[in-house]
């Protein structure tokens, strides 16, 4: 899968080189190298990328072609210490996870009700800090594929159009402001709130492989919780917590909520003997 991305990357590099020298000013600094941009999908099916603004962060932004600007929620703007003029700020640096970097980015500092609502209700499963809209997105050719874990973004030479002020945009508020109060009421009655911080799953310290449709312990790391519990290479895992096991994915799924200090019980067969082994998870991955 990775290789295919690289293939696309190489192909895309060629037209960019052909454009080199278009403008003297940008020719020196312009880097048309495509970069992988790691993303996550939020619980609300938004495409989340992480950025560092003026070296601070990381912050969570949504890739949003439906937003005309790079929009930073007000509390985040305050946290970074952004100086704003009529709601606009110039960011000295905008680093994206994966390696892309922009300098002197114009940003709007304002809290959209969507962000306030989703954060207030904890809907996305992660705190959102802003929207990455046209003024940043249009600097790239973007490849999306939700069967992958990364996007591929190639810098473009054409500069996006600057943000425009629109006459008659007042109509945009028609009815939408009521959403804010609605969300607050819903949040209050449903007892919703921001999610608690995530916790890491525990560490057990053994590897598995499939052999004759059976899950076999392929390796037990020395000094790991699995080694201490007595798990051995070659053990056949037949059950986890009294449920039959048919695949590695099943074992991973059943253990996926076990945090450090908690236990996982495996029923294993060693030779002709069956036994239960209880492993107390440690921290690590």
């Amino acid at each position, binding site marked *: 899968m990775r290789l295919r991305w690289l293939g696309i990357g190489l192909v895309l590099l060629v037209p960019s080189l052909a454009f080199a020298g278009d403008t003297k000013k940008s020719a020196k600094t312009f880097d048309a190298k495509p970069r992988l941009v790691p993303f996550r999908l939020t619980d609300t099916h938004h495409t989340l990328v992480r950025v560092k603004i003026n070296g601070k962060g990381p912050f969570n932004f949504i*890739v949003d072609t439906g*937003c005309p600007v790079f929009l930073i929620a007000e509390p985040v703007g305050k946290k970074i210490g952004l100086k704003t003029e009529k709601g606009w700020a110039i960011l000295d640096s905008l680093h994206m996870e*994966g*390696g892309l970097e922009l300098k002197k980015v114009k940003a709007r500092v304002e809290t959209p009700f969507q962000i306030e609502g989703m954060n207030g209700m904890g809907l996305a499963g992660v705190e959102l800090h802003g929207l990455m809209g046209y003024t940043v*997105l249009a600097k790239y050719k973007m490849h999306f594929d939700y069967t992958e874990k990364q996007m591929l973004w190639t810098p473009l030479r054409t500069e996006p159009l600057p943000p425009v002020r629109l006459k008659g945009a007042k109509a945009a508020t028609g009815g939408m402001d009521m959403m804010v109060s609605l969300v607050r009421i819903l949040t209050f009655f449903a007892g919703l709130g921001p999610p608690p911080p995530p916790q890491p799953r525990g560490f057990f310290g053994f590897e598995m492989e499939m052999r004759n449709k059976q899950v076999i312990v392929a390796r037990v790391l020395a000094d790991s919780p699995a080694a201490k519990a007595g798990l051995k290479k070659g053990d056949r895992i037949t059950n986890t917590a009294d449920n039959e096991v048919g695949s590695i994915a099943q*074992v991973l799924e059943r253990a996926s909520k076990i945090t450090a200090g908690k236990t996982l019980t495996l029923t294993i067969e060693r030779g002709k003997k069956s036994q239960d082994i209880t492993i107390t998870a440690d921290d690590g991955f």
Partner: protein
Amino acid sequence: MKIQFALLCITVFFIPAAAQAQGQDQKQPPKKFVVPFEIIKTQHMVVNVKVNGKGPFRVVFDTGAPDSLVSNKLAKAAGLKGKGGGLPLFGARGAATINSLEIGDLKATNVSTMIMDHPTVNAIASLVGPLEGIIGFTFYSRYKMSIDYEKKLMTFEPNTYVPGDVMQMMMKKMLAPKSVRQAPRILAPAGLFGIRVEKAKDDDEPGVTVKQVLADSPAGIAGFKAGDRLLTLDGRWTDTVADCYIAAGHVRVGQPAVAFVVRDGKKILLKVTARAGL
């Protein structure tokens, strides 16, 4: 006049609505479809679509929209009937399924959508002419998609992704008992690395510190050492312990991932291959 840019952002925000059917794509030939788009003066992407053979209609293409959305006018013309439910705001008629959605030569089947006159879409339309909806995640996630702002072209190539029913998931989430809703999310790595990391509370520097590396583990084989400062794993920043687990949760087992560590003041690239295990 204060221009509310936030309100021009049409990231669809949900109010839980009726459950929605999620269809399966019929078999598409593995072909790449090229579709032109337009950047309107509000700097939104606009495409022309045909819905159930009717149209073309101009709609906004919005990667910030988890669902697609059509106006009542379009719904009527295309014979779409909402399943009702949800809040009776902005002419909302609930969820519907579009039998055929055509963008250029690309024809998608069973695309779920909401029927609603989105006020922000209307506001934009008042400036740029009629717009009858939003194309969102329920459509574009089924394709490998590229957006080229320079050429003003998009490409679509079917992938195997099934978008799932986000509205139903949201409903379930909101209706779940508080104990379930307030339970912390557990970050599960995709595979086994054999490493422990830590970060002191007052440590604001990038990265985390490697506390222990297990012998013969993928991390040990990759050359990680206790005391290393881990900066990135598989292209993702590892500035907190949780970040490491998120990165480890996104790697592909059996495929090498690049990690950067700082050791003795030098930045070192390590290649680590997570194995099937935990």
